[in-house]
């Protein structure tokens, strides 16, 4: 899977979960400050990412931005 494909799939999940416009999500989007995601929102997003990519993600304290999330997914896919 290319980097762009991973990002697009993650973006799709975030757009659906938070009812956003497509152009509101970029790699630099901060999940707490820009999207107003709380800890449970993050749990839900991680669950959906795990299901859609068929991977396991560890606890999310160091996922602050979309880039962080994409990097975690890429690391799991490469493992």
């Amino acid at each position, binding site marked *: 899977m290319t980097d762009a494909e991973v990002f697009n799939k993650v973006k799709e999940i975030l757009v659906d979960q938070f009812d956003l416009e497509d152009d509101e999500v970029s790699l630099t989007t901060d999940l707490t400050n820009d999207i107003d995601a709380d800890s449970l929102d993050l749990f839900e997003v991680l*669950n959906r990412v795990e299901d859609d990519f068929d991977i396991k993600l560890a*606890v999310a304290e160091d996922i602050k931005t979309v880039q962080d999330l994409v990097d975690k997914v890429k690391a799991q896919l490469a493992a």
Partner: protein
Amino acid sequence: MEQIKIVASARQIPQRTVTNDELSAMMDTDDQWIYSRTGIHERHVVTTENTSDLALKVAQKLLEQSNYDANDIDFILVSTMSPDATSPNTAALVQAGLGANQAFAMDLSAACSGFVYGMSVATSLLSSRYRRGIVIGAEVLSKLVDWTDRTTAVLFGDGAAGVLIEKTDDAVGLLAEDLRSFGDVNGYLVAGRFANANAFSGEITTLDPFFHQNGREVYNFATREVPNTLTRVLAKAELTADDVDVYLLHQANARIIMSIAKRLGQNIEKFPMNMNKYGNTSAATVPILLDELRADNVVHEGQTIALVGFGGGLTIGAQIWKL
């Protein structure tokens, strides 16, 4: 279908209310934080009563409502993770208070799945040798809460509720059930650990009465496995999710329920909630909700309903009823 009628339901809630604002004066939290993450505004706590007192009041109300005499009852089952004591069991204290001299009494421990597990046992008893029984979920969780731990203190409350059920010739009853346990992940939600030591050992385990939970894993478990259980139980009942009129889910967290409703493709209005008033009362949440909805006629004859508990163990239980 196992032809069983829910004859009556009743609840007993302690009078003292503890609001989020009151908790915010005791620990670093606030109403907006608690409510947005859990759906809880306030909870009730006992100030003089214990679990058996709440359960007894429920049982007394059930008899009054149903017009049965205490001696008409074959069994009393109390589901609780916060009994007065390990012995005598809570149900025995209820039996004594009622004067239900023909009834046998037992407790069942399955945390937040307790009421549904209790209904499974009770309906099995009715389908075999007995005619009529009482099933109660009763909790005083305030005695298991670390009131300095803001991650758990905001979640739990006290309360009790239950039903009187009996065998019937009416075309109503239990359509299907699915109970499952996940003991391999038991550590994600724990409470009430006894100290273990004797005259011949060192200290084997220390006393730890308080709740501890892994929030991420519990959320993960509930939002993934409860839809799986509902899918299985609906298949057993030969129904679709659309066929169920009201889903009565364990009232732990509004966000968990919203996630489950979404995964099932069901309108959230089919998932009534009252944790805003009571918090998580473990085995009591489902029967408290059931009693409130029956009183408001939101749940009534002619409907198909789902009762779903999930939590410590970890455990899940679901039943589909035709009322």
